[in-house]
């Protein structure tokens, strides 16, 4: 939610500060505290002063110049910031070879107006003591000819990438009023030597870490809404179990297992209840399970297959896949298992649904012309849109701000992880060459 009418230009909504404020510092401080306190109740974004209106039909990318930062890690860090901003499609990152001044030179308005930059990012990176880093970053408004934001970022150890993403988040928030997703992560299943392992990486595919969880077969993990846990299914020694990984304690617990096939699944908003598909009763049906009480409640029942449940962000609805009408299609039902209705009618193979964070879209994998592609549809069945058209693509899920989608695809050979904007633009592979991967899920925060 924003408080001001959204505008695209940098300077349009800026309020000039009066020079004749005759109030003591204490009073200014009190005012600010009260303002922020009151504001933050209704408006998550209190500090941002200017906005880019991403919804406006006349929306135009903001030309921004991200200078190469001074210092030894300066290039690496400023490149990451530029790539983050560029992927959003909201900024137009200008070519550095056109820049007339460097990060270390003083900011001069005319050097930037001539190349069409409306905002400039400059910075320097030095050692923050020991192995750490200290980055000092400034943001300039070219039209106003002055610095509008300055901040220092300090890390210990080798966190250059997270540091750069933190800077990108601040710049993004400054212009859009929204939280950036540049420090979010993606959980996925990596395949090494015929064995699957649960892995985690940054949203841009860097810093892949194997969580140590192996299985003969593992399937798509799901994040709890607070991002502290993952729910996934794994086959070990001829049995499918539903498992929970707790990032706070770094422990794995088996939630449920039985003869037959158990396939996660999703969390309900309260995080104690999870939903999964199990053939414990003979055929793959959907069950709600309470982690604290171990109570198992059957939510769906059909002669055929019910699988891949995804809980709406408010917890009131569940979309899932069923072949009850002959072919796999997406269905919706209330969280109590009642009011079942079919959502997809086009095509004979629609699977792997997932809700958008606002609950206004469902993405899924649908077969079209013999290949699986990513589609989006509104929960009322309208607005069906095909988003991919190369190779086979599956396992789509939204970023926490709903602006991007991660999915797996075999378009370049082996299965790998890709991201794109929610409208299908800017599709790119994020996992490195030689890594087989599938089942990605974007973290919820």
């Amino acid at each position, binding site marked *: *939610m*924003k408080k*001001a*009418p*959204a505008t695209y230009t940098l300077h349009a909504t800026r309020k000039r500060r009066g*020079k004749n404020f005759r*109030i003591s*510092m*204490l*009073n*200014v401080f009190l*005012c600010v505290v*009260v*303002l922020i306190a*009151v504001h933050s109740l209704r408006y998550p974004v209190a500090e941002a002063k200017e906005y880019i209106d*991403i*919804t406006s039909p006349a929306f135009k990318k903001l030309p921004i110049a991200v200078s190469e930062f001074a210092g030894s890690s300066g290039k690496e860090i400023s490149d990451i910031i530029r790539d983050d901003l560029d992927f959003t499609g909201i900024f137009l990152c200008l070519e550095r070879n056109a820049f007339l001044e460097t990060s270390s030179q003083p900011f001069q308005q005319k050097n930037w107006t001539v190349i069409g930059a409306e905002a400039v990012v400059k910075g320097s990176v030095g050692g923050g003591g020991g192995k750490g880093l200290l980055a000092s970053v400034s943001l300039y408004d070219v039209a106003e000819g002055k610095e509008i934001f300055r*901040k*220092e970022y*300090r*890390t210990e150890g080798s*966190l250059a990438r*997270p540091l750069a993403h*933190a800077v990108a988040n601040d710049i993004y928030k400054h212009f859009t*009023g*929204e939280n950036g997703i540049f420090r979010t992560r993606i959980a996925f299943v990596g395949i090494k030597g015929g064995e*699957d392992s649960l892995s985690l990486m940054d949203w841009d595919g860097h810093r892949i870490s194997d*969580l*140590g969880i192996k299985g003969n*077969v593992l*399937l798509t993990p799901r994040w709890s809404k607070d991002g502290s846990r993952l729910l996934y299914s794994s086959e*070990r*020694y*001829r049995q*499918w179990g539903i498992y929970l*990984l707790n*990032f706070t304690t*770094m*422990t*794995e617990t088996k939630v449920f297992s039985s003869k*037959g*096939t158990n*396939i996660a699944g999703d969390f309900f908003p309260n995080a104690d209840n999870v939903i999964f*598909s199990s*053939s414990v009763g003979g*055929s793959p049906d959907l069950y709600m399970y309470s982690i604290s009480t171990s109570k198992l409640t059957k939510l769906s029942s059909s002669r055929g*297959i*019910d*699988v*891949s449940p995804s809980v709406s962000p408010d917890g009131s609805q569940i979309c899932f*896949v069923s072949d009850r009408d002959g072919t*796999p299609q997406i269905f919706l039902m209330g969280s109590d298992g009642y009011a079942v209705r079919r959502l997809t009618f086009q095509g004979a193979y629609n699977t792997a649904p997932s809700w958008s964070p*606002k609950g206004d*879209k469902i993405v899924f994998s649908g077969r079209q012309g013999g290949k*699986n592609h990513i589609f989006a549809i509104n929960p009322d069945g309208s607005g069906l849109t095909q988003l991919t058209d190369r190779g*086979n693509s599956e396992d789509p899920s*939204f970023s926490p701000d709903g*602006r991007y989608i991660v999915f797996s695809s075999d378009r370049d050979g082996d299965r790998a992880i890709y991201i794109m904007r*929610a409208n299908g633009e800017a599709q790119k592979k994020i996992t490195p060459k030689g890594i087989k991967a*599938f089942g990605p899920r974007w973290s919820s925060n």
Partner: protein
Amino acid sequence: MVIKLTEEVFSMKRFLACVAIIGFAIFGCAEKQAVAPVPQPGELTPPSQPKEVEKPKQVPVTEQVTEQQIAKVESGEVPSKMEEVSGMFKDIYFDYDKYEINENGRLVLRSVADYLTKNRAHKILIEGHCDDRGTSEYNLALGDKRAKSAKDFLLSLGVTSSRAEVISYGKEKPLCSERTEECWAKNRRAHFVILKGKK
């Protein structure tokens, strides 16, 4: 579409709420100034120096960028103690996206039932598999249905339920990895493994 921030941003209601909040904040503070004009003993800034007000802006904010260290979890689970014998029976095959047993499949299953009648201490594990054209989770459920169809046929031949177990591998363990009709047909299968009682 997802690229929408908010359309109803500048409703009159919100505008008024905003004005009210800001007004309250400033007015409330201004009142405090009037009520408490006596400088606090610890106050460093004299209230009569307006230039000082802008100064705090110049001090850069510092953010400590940290990250939770992710330790490796070792998933410890006890291996099965059953001895497995594979390859005694032929795989049985299924049509695309189907889990009905065909005539050939029934033939193989009759020999499985026969074997189980003669070897009372043994069990059968039926693996369900799919070709890789579908998606992972649906295929896992489909593989479950294929294995279950095979099991149901064995039960109809008099095998007791506890002697036939099912497991699905979906499309995750293909026999053949080419993208041809012939290869897909080979992957849409149920595979039989004999389990020789617990040791």
